[in-house]
């Protein structure tokens, strides 16, 4: 289990992570979502002891990362843009990690097999594609057969087959009762993988709930454009339909039926220039939660 308690990180006057508290349970895949720059990477690096929190505390299995006796055997981490020495082969990179972490060397070939890098294992990393580097990073995370996996944007650079493989892999990993915490800035990318999500924006937690609850927020709506938007809004309100004014004479009515909106407009003599039924997606919910509205 991963626990963050009032984690805060300030860089000068900029607050990158602001009083963030959450727990990540074992036996499930938890997503860590937020737009770019929301503080995801900083948070993950604080969990891993790479960035010192300004205040607050982060523990994995009840211990701070730096105090874990054999961290590589407890926690596997895939960092964003994982860096390797360009002149070292993928296999030798894993051997250096295995040697330092006292992991038997046969695990190196096992994990290379798991991520399907065996064929290029002896080539120098500088010849690897982004996807191959990402798989090497995943191989490294798996070396110690850890109970906890932390992955920062692991889908970056992976091809669709790779993403699918990763999704299935993470699901089965969590199904074994282990903890998986995976960050992304695209909800759709991990919606099929995660059981629940912690969503952050500007360093603050804006939601931490099951994916079912997030889906429940995804209500349908009807988009209308009218020169008499204000009047239409009143008429819809009188009929008990909530609306959002998105500017320039456009409203979004929180109702599924475009017929009903059209009838109400006609009954009130409101001219409509546009009437479109829209189903709000998970992505809309995410954008709404993070306060980043879609470009109109």
């Amino acid at each position: 289990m991963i626990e963050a308690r009032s984690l805060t990180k300030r860089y000068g006057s900029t607050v990158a992570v602001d009083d963030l508290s959450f727990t990540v349970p074992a036996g499930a895949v938890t997503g860590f979502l937020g737009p770019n720059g929301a503080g995801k990477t900083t948070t993950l690096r604080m969990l891993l002891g790479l960035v010192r929190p300004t205040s607050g505390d982060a523990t994995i299995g009840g211990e701070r990362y730096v105090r874990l006796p054999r961290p590589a055997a407890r926690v596997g981490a895939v960092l964003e843009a994982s860096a390797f020495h360009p002149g070292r082969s993928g296999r030798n990179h894993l051997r250096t990690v295995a040697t330092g972490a006292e992991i038997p060397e046969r695990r190196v070939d096992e994990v290379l097999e798991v991520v399907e890098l065996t064929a290029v294992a002896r080539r120098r990393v500088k010849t690897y594609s982004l996807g191959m580097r990402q798989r090497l990073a995943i191989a490294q995370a798996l070396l110690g057969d850890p109970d906890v996996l932390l992955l920062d944007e692991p889908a970056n650079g992976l091809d669709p087959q790779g993403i699918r493989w990763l999704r299935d892999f993470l699901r089965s990993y969590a199904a074994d009762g282990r903890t998986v915490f995976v960050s992304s800035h695209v909800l759709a990318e991990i919606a099929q993988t995660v059981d629940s999500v912690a969503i952050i924006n500007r360093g603050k937690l804006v939601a931490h709930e099951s994916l079912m609850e997030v889906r429940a927020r995804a209500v349908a709506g009807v988009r209308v454009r009218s020169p008499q938007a204000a009047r239409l809004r009143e008429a819809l309100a009188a009929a008990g339909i909530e609306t959002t004014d998105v500017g320039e004479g456009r409203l979004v009515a929180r109702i599924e039926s475009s017929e009903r909106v059209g009838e109400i407009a006609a009954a009130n003599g409101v001219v409509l220039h546009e009437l479109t039924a829209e189903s709000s997606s998970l992505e809309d919910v995410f954008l709404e939660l993070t306060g980043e509205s879609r470009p109109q």
Partner: protein
Amino acid sequence: MTALVLAELLKARTTRSAVGLALGLLAIVAFFGSVHAATLDLPADTHATSDNLSSVFFVPVFAIIFGILASAGEYRHGTISQTLLVTPVREKLVGAKLVAAAIVGAALWAVAAALAVVVCGIWFGARGIPFDAGDAASTLLPALLAAALWAALGIGLGFVLTSQVGAIVALFAWLFVVESIVEGLLPRVHRFLPGGLLNDVLHADDADFSRPVAALITLAYVAAFAVVGTALARRRDVT
């Protein structure tokens, strides 16, 4: 701790940097020994063997560059993140790197000394000059001590500065500019500086300090850089 030292030695063996440094060193040793032996004016030279082998005095400089590559190189390539995930306790990491660098420094010395002796033996044999083993040891062994110390000094320097190029530039600017000026103006201060001490470790004849004292003061520099480097590594965010 042994595992961490072995991991650091494996890192040294699995890139081309250490091999490249060794090859550069060997080229200098072969060139220097050959030129010296070919141009040697025999009766005037009472320490022909040790003079011929004195190119091993380059080993400490190559050793400190290795130390810088092994520490600042981790920041340069971003591998410091992964390294700290395996060894989050900075003291342990710096300690393992110090030991491993001293071993690599000794290994650089071993290949350089071996080639120097071979080159010297071939030339002296051809010219009929006797090879004085005792004289050879008086040059070779101090270079081993200096190589191990300076490799470890490079680790601390790399952790303090974290910029690989910056550390190497700073090193040469220090040795060839700062120390030269201090040596000219304040010779009493210069003898306490790393370059001055290196001279005392390598040459017993024109030394300010005896070899053990010079080595101990150098060790104090190694410890100081390592402690400051570790403290900075603890405070520094790795992003």
